[in-house]
């Protein structure tokens, strides 16, 4: 249907044009009847009008025409169709259920594939995820070395073995595991999960007077820097079987060590004991900056730090709290050949040099 020269892009009500909801009382009855008993005609017409009202059978009959029309049927009936072709998952799961139901056939045909895994998360959770094959990281003789700092792992009979899939997503495993196993997961495979935490950490580096409300009822004042910025940060860390007991071992304040589990780092947040000091007199909570936010640290304090360490450390954190990390060849102040590691955010930046 065209309108003003353009194709109509809204819902096309004309697809099914039959209208059975029409009272024929006046046409069916003989003329003399209509003349002699006008009230009866009105009465009957009122009756048919009542039938066509909501929740009466006239309305149901009209619905029958479109009851299996994905576009027109009520969500209540669409739910029944989900029961037929979508293993009973509720239409309410989807942002666009009428579109989702059309794709289940294709989805089931490719179950177990990367396509189906990605499709599952897009359809059910509106999220893009990353699929990792841990078998690619298995140590093979003559290839690589073992260790956290290295790429390769020994087969561990769990995540790091042949029959294993690792899903890196922004959603906790508990939220999607059951659905995933029903719809996608190849039975017999290890299911591993990592959570990508994306947030808006208020990395406000403020003046002593600036006030940031990170949590309700807590007034925070940062005292360790003087430039106010607000940035988006990202950190990637393992979740499944992550030893939560590791958390206390890492003080969260030093960046001279490789962070064994960035998630734990985040879980501890900014308010854990030892990270803050409370000034009761001024009703202020002061948060210590984690120096990884700052590149002002003195590299000389870390004589063991190598370029490889820094590369490894920042390899998956090219951006942290808005600071973009980069390394390039450079000449330092003494004009010696060096590697420059810089961290920048807008016009705020710093760099350290590793002389070659």
């Amino acid at each position, binding site marked *: 249907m065209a309108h003003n020269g353009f194709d109509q892009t809204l819902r096309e009500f004309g697809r099914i044009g039959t209208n059975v909801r029409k009272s024929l009382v006046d046409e069916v009855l003989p003329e003399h009847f209509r003349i002699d008993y006008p009230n009866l005609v009105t009465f009957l017409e009122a009756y048919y009008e009542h039938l066509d009202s909501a929740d009466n059978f006239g309305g149901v009959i009209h619905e*029958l025409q479109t009851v299996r029309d994905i576009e027109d049927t009520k969500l209540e009936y669409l739910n029944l169709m989900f029961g037929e072709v979508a293993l009973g998952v509720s239409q309410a799961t989807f942002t666009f259920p009428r579109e989702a139901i059309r794709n289940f056939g294709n989805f*089931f045909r490719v179950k177990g594939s990367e396509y189906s895994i990605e499709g599952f998360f897009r359809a059910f959770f509106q999220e893009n995820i990353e699929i990792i094959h841990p078998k690619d990281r298995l140590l093979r003789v003559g290839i690589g070395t073992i260790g956290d700092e290295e790429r390769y792992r020994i087969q561990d*009979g769990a995540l790091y073995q042949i029959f294993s899939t690792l899903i890196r997503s922004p959603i906790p495993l508990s939220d999607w595991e059951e659905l995933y196993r029903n719809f996608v997961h190849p039975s*017999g495979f290890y299911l591993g999960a990592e959570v990508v935490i994306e947030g808006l950490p208020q990395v406000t580096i403020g003046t002593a007077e600036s006030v940031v409300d990170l949590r309700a009822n807590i007034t925070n004042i940062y005292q360790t820097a003087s430039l106010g910025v607000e940035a988006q940060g990202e950190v990637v860390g393992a979740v499944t079987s992550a030893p939560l007991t590791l958390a206390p071992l890492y003080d969260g304040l030093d960046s001279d060590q490789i962070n064994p589990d960035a998630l734990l780092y985040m879980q501890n947040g900014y308010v854990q004991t030892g990270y803050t000091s409370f000034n009761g007199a001024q009703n202020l909570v002061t948060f210590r900056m984690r120096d990884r936010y700052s590149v002002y640290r003195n590299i000389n304090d870390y004589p063991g730090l190598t370029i490889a360490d820094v590369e490894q450390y920042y390899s998956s954190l090219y951006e942290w709290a808005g600071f973009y990390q980069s390394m390039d060849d450079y000449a330092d102040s003494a004009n010696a050949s060096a590697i420059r590691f810089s961290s920048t955010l807008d016009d705020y930046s710093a760099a350290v040099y590793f002389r070659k």
Partner: protein
Amino acid sequence: MATTVKSTDLDFQNIKAGLKNYLRSKSEFADYDFDASGLNNILDVLAYNTHINGLTANFALNEAFLPTAQLRSSVVSHAETLGYQVRSRTTASALVNLTVNLAGVIGRPAQIQLPVGWQFTSSIDGISYTFRTLETYFARDNGSGLYEFKTTTGSIDIPIYEGVEKTKTFLVGEADERQVFVIPDNTIDTSTADVLVYDTASSTNYVTYTRLSEAVTIDANSTVYSIREAPNGFYELNFGDGVSFGKKPDAGNKVVVTYLSSSGPDANSGDTFTSNSNLTVGGIGYTVSTATSNESTGGALRQSIESVRQLAPIAYASQQRLVTSADYKATILSNFSQVNDCNVWSGDQNVPIDYGAVYVCLNFPAGTSQATKDLVKANIVTNFTDNLSVVSMTTKFTDPTDVFLELNTQFDFDPALSGFTLAGTETGVFNYVTNYFNTNLNTFNAIFRRSNLLTEIDALDQAILSSRIDVKAQLRIEPTVGVVDNFELSFPMKIASPDDEIYSVSSSIFEYNGAVCQIKNKLNDTRLQIIDIDGNVLLDNVGEYKPLDGEVNIIGFTLDAFIGGNQFIKISVVPDNPSVIRPLRNYVLRLDTSESSATATIDRQTSSLQVT
């Protein structure tokens, strides 16, 4: 169970009242007396009309969806649109070893033949059933005159199938429309059908058509057929359209369908088979000796509506592949009528973890022989998992583990509110609990929720004022008298921590060192002891239990004798959370009726009747 859509009010009085209210709200009828006889009669007629049409509309609406359809024909039709083949009645089959002894016969042949359709009789529960071969088998002289028949693969296990062979003949007419040939028999096992299409009614030239599901490629000349259940419960034989979906029989052709009419499950469990006739060799009849290799199994009625409703969507999701655990389950239940129920889980969910493996637990009907179980498992692997699963996945089978629940129900009972006696109500409650398990549990993944059962008990009779249930879970060990042994029991839930008054672990009684004893945990401790009925500790350490792991490890245990008729000992534990018992993997929750009870306490609500 199916749910239904109820979109309009289907109560006549409500319909009439609604109509009346609607008309009253119209200004034209404001002064009408709708209760007067004339108008009242008209309203009755209109309300009846509305009622009937409302019912019809609701029927149509409900039949439009697989989850809500009530008619078998509708459910079958919906399933077919999902590509699901509804299972017809299936014949029972057995494996037998067949031999003919021609020792001493001069000039005996090197090979003899057992014709297709050779019949055997088996008596099951006093009723004779006829079994028959569906292929021709050959046997060679072993040098001593003994001929043992073998399959083409060399196996001596010859399959025989129960059923009466029937034939239906059709003449293809001139109709332009696609013709459907109805086989007027609802006892057909469609998997046994042979379809021959003759050139003419009198011709001996024929073409054998193959089942559509077995066709590799299909074009206009493919001689394929399909059989589907018709709306009236009979079966329709369908051919191609002659264009792209297989050959269409020509006018004047004769279609002959031969099939087995099956007795279904009645012919299961036959373990003795007798050849109905002698095999003629050289003009002389010789006895065909029969030894049963595997009893008759697999006979089943046609698939139930609820089974179709449950499995068709899963089969659609599986897309003829075995990827997820649900795919395995649907495929097994759809194709193996010998299996009551099954559960499948990934190796990464197994204990111990086993990657690259898929675990299948089959629940067979009581009395199924081990040979039958083994045969079904072998067929599952050979016919399905080896072909349809993810490459390199291994299928492993495990048996169900029964976890018995001991439920001691106590309820307050006011006799003044009931026509039943206290004892009668106790029996009624106990029977209700038993039926509750039969209906809701006794199968895989069925969760026991105490509050649900209590709600239903409270609703049984207004005289039941309140109720509670003490829950214990029980596994059983089968020690050998006089033999020291270890037992590791794994419960599907956490066990209550040690208590200073209540034993978290206790066993049924047995004889040990000449005394009647039980295994119990030491109070306030996880250590297990053997204690006599007077409370004396006869063995201080016979293992331990791990509350958080739900494990009971009995170490170095022996007994002098069992007490009672059972040759096992019940090990009962108090669940950490008795409100919910969730069976995982191969666990099935059942009720131990011998350890369960229902006890009432009189609680009179009428103060005048209270005894002071």
